[in-house]
């Protein structure tokens, strides 16, 4: 039965480091929730607090309304998939999967049936009597998943489950994990540093940095409307420009930066004139070439480097003359390529794609 997971004001420190710093978070029943961040951001610590392997100094964790903060791991009824898979090498695949049921004193016949079903779900039925070291990485991953699922956990916890797999298998498994979670209607918390994994699979995600949540929302919200320089920089690629709010008039505001002035429709409620801000311009929102008449945000620049990748051409465009700034510009479905050498071109961006963030360091 899917349950909600509520984390309130959680703090966990290791020596001097505060790995989890007053985090508050609610994960809805049946949600596939991602904790995303660079290494050392506290995402794994938070997951291990939920599993019960770390005791937080303060704050609380509730599952389905029951407090579990001080409950030892074996009483929490979470199913965890470890980064290293942690399959017991002295037991067969079937024995690994059956272990949790045995601990729950499930009868023999039912255990056999549920193990069989779980292995079928991850397409590992033919390997039931193999030892873990006879399996490939991807197969071990599936067994680890089956072992966590077979107990019908209140909540599935996944700690970078795909980080030991090759790129192709990773793509395959991430859709597979989403399918299985949705079919079983599970609440799942998934830790990763891979933003593409998070964007493509998550219902919602939280971006963590230095033990705090930078932003929490659906993948689209976080990508399109990042709320901090960190969140904008960690998810996807972007260009940052430091500037000052020059003027707010009606539905628009003007931000002046050393290289140009930019018009945006965002942040009208947040910022006031004179505020120091940082602009985020995604490379795919920037366009090269002639803009339609009346288009704001048109800047003259020089294309001085181009990388052709087939579906996209990545240009480096210098704006603001010598001592100006480089902008990364993605040209999707590129047809006419810049010749070798430098070439003058104007760059433009829609006012709705100019994202304004509080001043910060990328």
């Amino acid at each position, binding site marked *: 039965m899917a349950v909600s997971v509520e984390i309130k004001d959680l703090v966990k420190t290791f020596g001097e480091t505060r790995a989890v710093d007053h985090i508050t978070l609610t994960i809805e029943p049946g949600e596939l929730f991602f904790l995303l961040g660079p290494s050392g951001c506290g995402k794994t610590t938070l997951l291990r607090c939920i*599993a*019960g*392997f770390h005791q937080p100094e303060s704050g609380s964790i509730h599952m389905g309304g029951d407090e579990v903060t001080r409950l*030892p*791991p*074996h*009483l*929490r*009824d*979470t*199913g*965890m998939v*470890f*980064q*290293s898979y*942690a*399959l*017991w*090498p*002295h037991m067969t695949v079937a024995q690994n999967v059956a*272990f*949790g049921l045995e*601990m*729950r004193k499930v009868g023999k016949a039912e255990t056999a049936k549920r193990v069989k079903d779980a292995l079928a779900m991850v397409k590992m039925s033919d390997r039931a009597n193999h030892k873990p070291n006879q399996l490939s990485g991807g197969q071990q991953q599936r067994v680890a998943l089956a*072992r*966590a699922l077979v*107990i019908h956990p209140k909540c599935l*916890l996944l700690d970078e489950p795909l980080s030991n797999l090759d790129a192709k298998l990773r793509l395959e498994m991430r859709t597979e994990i989403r399918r299985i979670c949705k079919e079983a209607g599970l609440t799942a918390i998934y830790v990763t540093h891979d933003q593409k994994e998070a964007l493509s699979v998550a219902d919602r995600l939280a971006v963590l940095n230095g033990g705090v949540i930078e932003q929490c929302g659906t993948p689209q919200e976080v990508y399109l409307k990042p709320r901090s320089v960190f969140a904008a920089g960690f998810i996807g690629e972007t260009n940052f420009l430091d500037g000052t709010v020059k003027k707010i008039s009606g539905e628009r505001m003007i931000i002046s930066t050393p290289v140009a002035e930019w018009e945006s429709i965002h942040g009208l409620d947040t910022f006031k004139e004179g505020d120091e801000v940082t602009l985020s311009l995604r490379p795919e929102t920037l366009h090269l070439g002639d803009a339609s008449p009346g288009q704001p945000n048109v800047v003259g620049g020089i294309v001085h480097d181009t990388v052709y990748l087939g579906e996209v051409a990545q240009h480096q465009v210098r704006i603001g003359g010598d001592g100006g700034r480089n902008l990364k510009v993605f040209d999707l479905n590129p047809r006419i390529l810049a010749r070798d050498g430098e070439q003058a071109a104007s760059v433009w961006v829609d006012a709705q794609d100019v994202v304004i963030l509080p001043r910060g360091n990328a």
Partner: protein
Amino acid sequence: MRKSTARLIFGITVLVFAVAFLFPLVLVVGKGFLTPDGTLTLEYLIGVFRNPIYVEGLFNSLRLALGTTFLATLLSLPLAWLSNRYDFAGKKWVNALVLVPMILPPFVGAIGFQQILGQYGALNSLLGTDIDWLGQGRWFGVILLQSLALYPIMYLNVAASLANIDHAMDEAAENMGATGWAKFRRISLPLMTPGMFAGGTIVFIWSFTELGTPLIMNYTRCASVQVYDALKEIGGNPFPFALVFVMLAVSVILYAVSKFLFGGKAYAMQGKAATTFTTERMSGWRGFLTLLPFLVVIGMALLPHLGVILTSFTAPGGWYQSVLPQSVTTGNYAEALGHEMTVSSIRNSLTFSTLAVLFNLVFGIAIAFVVVRSTIRGRAILDGLAMLPLAVPGLVMASGYLAFSSMLSNTAWVKSSDTLHSLFDVKTNPTLFLVMAYGIRRLPYMVRSAVAGLQQTSAGLEEAAANLGAKPMVSLKRVTLPLITANLIAGALLAFSFSMLEVSDSLMLAQRQDFYPITKTIYELFQLIGTGKYLASALGVWAMMFLAVTIVGSSLLLGKKMGALFRV
């Protein structure tokens, strides 16, 4: 692991150590520094250094230890290096055979050694000479015998540290233009120094305080024998205790220096050897030349064993000034194994050793768990504490236990109860103190081997069990213990065989014939007029066979990891 559990284990272990290890040491020190009315005095210590006999004994012991350590290094270093570098026919065999000398306590080997190398022994008969090979005054003989018995400890340590060296280090040296001797001296040798020091410390402490070998070789002018003889006297002579204190101080200082210089992980390699390192294959005569040093060393090391085996089949008096025994018999076995002292001693040794191993298993696993899996502050202290018995010679511990026992048995409430009396008075029943002595002194091997096992077993495997609902004890039983079984069995077998071979505590603490362990019985049989050495050899061979099985068993189980057991 829960902090409260870890703290509980920590507390119990510290308590057990305080009672069974530290307190006896305090008593030794106390006896050496306190007058009968309890005032502090340096008189006894100064007395030791003023007495030319004690000074000579200490000097001789030091000479034995330095000589043995040097010779053992000389024997083991080339072998370890060859085995690390080259592949040759028979390598697997010699690698196992190198360890064989350890199945016989050196003092038993001494009997066979004298039969072969003595002035009236086999070698002189073979060559038609009349040379005293074991040297005038016999100190050289003791050194030779001890280094042939102890070099495997050195070998295991050096081999283990060589195995940890990333082959890329060597290739980097070659890349920079160093080859051959320069490479060995500048790169390989410094990298194996930690292993040499670790092994060397154990060999030094062992030979510095070895009691059995000098006794049998009749080399009485060394400190260990002087202590043994003096403690047999009745009436609390404080000088032997002051002498014991000097030996303790030398051992502990050496241990501390070695630990300080090369403690911890020694040269931590950056990751495991990344390049797959293939040893160079030596075939034909080059292979034989590589094998030769092994054959020579093993051959020499097995001479004492050969001598003991031959002696055990010799009719009393039948091997004198001849190459081989002149009259062969199996009568020695019948007599030795049928001797009332022998039958009870086998039973006693098995009992003491088994109890000691149980003690080791319980404490070894518990300590290893705290050291590897907990985060409490004291875990490093616990790790150090568990290794400390390696620094304290058996002779010193035995002296401490004797003092402890006499203190306890003189208290009113022990005197009033027969049960307590037989528990605490070694003269009545030494079981408690012998088990304590065996257990504490072999604990380091058990802890090392359990720690090694746990370190190789990812904590994630236990967490996965907890995550799926297993209580801590269930996870221990179902996941952890099965995974480290090989390490535990190997550690236990090793602790067991060392307990069976233990000499100092056995000779000093077992004072009633019905409580003699095997080693003491061998020594007592040896002293029988006429048939002594033949009966002692027969029992020695029996013990050797018994231990061969256990050691071979443990080395098969633990494979290359054997070396880790002998680290300081």
